[in-house]
């Protein structure tokens, strides 16, 4: 019954508000300058590859009480992690909630490796996430059809359309209704999460989707959720659904 209600409300919402038609979907890279795109597309110039290299060596570094590395259980990431990032966030039976890729990696670090969990946005966690996500580069975003995710995804869409902050804007007002136009001097992209973690030139470093969402929230002068907040995972769940079929670009470069 509850599930049916959610489906109903989801259907009503998408009928009432303009969603971007599939043939008009554009990656954030399409809004960048040719130079920034060239930087992303060449692994010799993409600065995010430095983080990926770090992630590669962490993948086989032994850590924790069991002195185990990621590779000891999962083998080479090129095969075991292929396509994984394109399917996340996924349902985590233990917590009864969806979990994002960085959260899954960290829970593995804590429970399987029995090591100190990595801090959100720490270089180590970003590096491992970027290395795992690189294995899905070029593959289509493929959100799982797991029914247990439906209510969380609906909650994510609700947040997407929720006005908030002193400027009283919702995500959808910019990224669904006004993409392609300018905010100040910067083009408004469609907000697809298919290149994270990214190297953002503005940050002079790597950052996760949550960091980017926090940026936007402080942009509309709202109180941003803390890192790891369930709201962020719900939003990512919806955004991945919204970007279904688009190719993964990780590790992306953004201005």
């Amino acid at each position: 019954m509850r599930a049916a209600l959610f489906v109903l409300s989801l259907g009503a919402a998408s009928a009432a508000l303009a969603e971007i038609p599939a043939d008009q979907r554009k990656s954030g890279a399409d809004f960048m300058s040719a130079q920034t795109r060239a930087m992303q597309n060449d692994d010799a110039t993409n600065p995010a590859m430095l983080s990926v290299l770090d992630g590669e060596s962490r993948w086989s570094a032994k850590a924790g009480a069991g002195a185990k590395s990621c590779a000891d259980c999962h083998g080479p990431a090129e095969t075991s992690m292929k396509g994984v990032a394109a399917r996340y966030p996924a349902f985590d039976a233990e917590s009864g909630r969806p979990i994002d890729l960085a959260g899954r990696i960290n829970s593995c670090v804590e429970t399987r490796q029995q090591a100190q969990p990595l801090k959100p946005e720490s270089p180590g966690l970003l590096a491992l996430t970027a290395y795992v996500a690189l294995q899905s580069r070029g593959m289509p975003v493929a959100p799982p059809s797991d029914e247990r995710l439906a209510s969380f995804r609906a909650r994510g869409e609700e947040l997407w359309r929720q006005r908030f902050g002193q400027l009283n804007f919702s995500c959808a007002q910019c990224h669904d209704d006004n993409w392609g136009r300018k905010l100040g001097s910067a083009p408004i992209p469609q907000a697809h999460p298919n290149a994270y973690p990214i190297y953002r030139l503005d940050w002079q470093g790597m950052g996760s989707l949550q960091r980017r969402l926090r940026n936007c929230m402080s942009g509309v002068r709202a109180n941003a959720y803390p890192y790891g907040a369930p709201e962020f995972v719900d939003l990512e769940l919806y955004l991945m659904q919204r970007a279904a079929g688009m190719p993964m670009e990780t590790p992306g470069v953004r201005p």
Partner: protein
Amino acid sequence: MAGSMGRALINFPPKARKGDVIEIRTLLSHPMETGFRPDSYGRLIPRDIVNRFECLFNGEPVFACDLFSAISANPFMAFTMTATQSGELVFRWKDDTGAVMEEKRRFEVE
């Protein structure tokens, strides 16, 4: 790892013919802290940048430069060299902490 320097990506054609002009591209991970930024207490964060980069081929300098505060984190450098013979390329970065990072690569001329 040396100082704030972590990793370097070095890229050039694996093989070249004698007389070819090849492009060498390097990317180094470094925060390039300018020395002008205050921390959350208002104190200036001390400058920590890569201040010197050099590239040698069989001991001969190919390219060298001094770097200053206005250069982005993770500095990228590209330069060219004429392929004359096979040998060893040495890349050396020095930062404000006095740390030196060195990478060596083999270069083949057919």
